[in-house]
């Protein structure tokens, strides 16, 4: 078990190093950083002096080492556009994105699994067919269109929910700015969370349904029925647990995708999160923010994948190879 974790952590570190290399290349080779820092009147000699002072003439390996060292301490430099440390900017906006991602991810998982199980167990009937048909819309409509449609219906026509922003927020000790504690904050969360989670929900639902139908055909489910176990035990004890391994994989990847691709939703709803920061930085060619964002998203993906691998372990005893090997 421990060896497995260590192996996975080392693999994750390698992945992070590769991503850092890409981020660094962005820094170093997308345009000339000196150009973005000084005015047009600066002489060539002054530019060269600044270049040397900033270490831009050092060999590649030393520069990359310095970048990784700084990144490890959370130092990604100063934003060109906002003249603030990049890490500070990201940390300010991260709670907004994480709260949005958490709510939509949880809702997508819970609703997706329930609807998937329901439609798998009730294959014929009006309601399951309606859910399946509706899920096609969820899978095929682009996120921004869903967001705009929701705004049109619930914010413009019905005027039930706000169309943009986070509403009122409360700063918790430790600097975490939360929207959960005010009613306007909670209301503002609903539309973006639906927009962001709808695709994931329908994806999880269709996956759970397909896996569940597959599992219900297996011999051990037939045998469980033949032993007279109640339907509830057969469906939720035996069948559901067996569908979970692939579902966990996809859900984990989707959670990463929710955080990474919150960009579109945040843009549509003017949500003050990391995604909106990234879009604005791209417009201003604010390379330090882009590089930091890249590294941050990679880190989130790597951590989620690590957790997913550990969850497999918890769910499927066949993966606990070392233990069984020790036994025989």
């Amino acid at each position, binding site marked *: 078990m421990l060896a497995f974790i260590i192996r996975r952590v080392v693999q994750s570190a390698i992945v992070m190093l590769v991503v850092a290399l890409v981020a660094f290349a962005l820094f170093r080779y997308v345009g000339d950083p000196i150009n973005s820092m000084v005015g047009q009147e600066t002489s060539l000699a002054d530019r060269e002096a600044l270049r040397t002072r900033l270490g831009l003439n050092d060999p590649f390996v030393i520069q990359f080492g310095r970048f990784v060292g700084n990144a490890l301490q959370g130092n990604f430099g100063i934003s060109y556009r906002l003249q603030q440390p990049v890490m500070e900017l990201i940390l300010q906006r991260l709670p907004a994105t994480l709260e949005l991602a958490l709510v939509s991810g949880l809702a997508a998982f819970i609703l997706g699994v329930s609807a998937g199980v329901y439609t798998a167990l009730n294959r014929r009937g009006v309601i399951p067919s309606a859910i399946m048909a509706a899920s096609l819309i969820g899978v095929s409509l682009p996120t921004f269109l869903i967001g705009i449609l929701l705004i049109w219906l619930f914010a413009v026509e019905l005027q039930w929910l706000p169309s943009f922003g986070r509403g009122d927020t409360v700063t918790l000790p430790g600097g975490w700015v939360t929207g959960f504690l005010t009613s306007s904050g909670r209301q503002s969360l609903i539309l973006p969370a639906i927009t962001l989670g709808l695709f994931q929900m329908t994806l999880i639902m269709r996956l759970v349904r397909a896996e569940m139908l597959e599992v219900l055909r297996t011999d*051990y489910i037939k045998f469980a029925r*033949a032993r*007279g176990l109640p339907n509830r035990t057969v469906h939720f004890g035996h069948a559901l647990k067996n569908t979970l391994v692939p579902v966990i994989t996809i859900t984990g990847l989707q959670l990463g995708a929710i955080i990474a691709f919150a960009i579109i939703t945040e843009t549509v709803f003017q949500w003050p999160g990391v995604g909106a920061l990234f879009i604005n930085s791209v417009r201003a060619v604010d390379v330090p923010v882009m590089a930091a964002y890249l590294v941050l998203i990679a880190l989130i993906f790597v951590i989620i994948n690590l957790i997913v691998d550990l969850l497999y372990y918890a769910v499927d005893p*066949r993966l606990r190879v070392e233990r069984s090997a020790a036994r025989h």
Partner: protein
Amino acid sequence: MAEPLLSVRNLVVEFPTRRGVLRALDGVSFDIAPGEVLGMVGESGAGKSITGAAIIGLIEPPGRIAGGEVYLAGKRIDNLPPDAMRAIRGKRIGMVFQDPLTSLNPLYTVARQLVETIRTHLDLSEKEARAHAIGLLDRVGIPAAARRIDDYPHHFSGGMRQRVVIALALAAEPELVIADEPTTALDVSVQSQIIDVLKEICAERGASVMLITHDMGVIAETADRVAVLYAGRMAEIGPVRDVILNASHPYTRGLMGSIPTLQQDNDRLVQIPGTMPRLNAIPTGCAFNPRCEHSFEKCRVHAPHLIDVAPHHAAACWLAEEET
């Protein structure tokens, strides 16, 4: 014969498909006496497994019982509501499936699957159920049962897993065990061990067995009576010795002729020409008539019913009527 434990009367099972209704079982009738082992043989698709599934009420939809009755100890069970039927499954009728590698849920320990099954049917505490489970595993011949019970299915070999499956099927001491090709997926060397375990335990508990197989050797050694199915119909039924030595139905004779024996010197085994008809193309009259070398006019028009050829021995063949 005493009152039969299981009585199947004119059982018809149909599968509606886009191209019409397929009749997988067509008017099958037989009895199993208490403590008796009935072997059921036939080619793949002859309806052996469907018969087992129909008795225990687990035919996969859209298949359904379209006619006939099933009685367990004199009480009709084929039309029971789902919950009442569920209470019979495992408790009064146990079932052993073909492939032990896929019959056990891979994610739960053997202990959990046994305890769960025992506590569904018997009013026992967790601890008592566990003790009962260890006793069962010990009885089916799993060494160090008290320790092995907490292992997962993948820790066991195929033969050991089939022993676990038998323990699970017998957990609530059912009166009837339906064993659907219990040894087909196993290594030849452990097949006879598994059959012995199954036979012994059922004998000591007085349980009847319906043994579905296409291995005539197993039938000859294990069963009291044998039923031969062909294309969803009963071809012949009778005591094992009578059927093997004096088969009346040409199909049964062909089946017996295709078993290799040490005494035979032939280069080739006897082979029945042709194949069993598909369910959507069963000929009128006797289903076997196109392959039968003795068929005559009546065979092509009227389907034969079971005709007694000896005490307790009947064959569905017009030739049998001629002889008697």
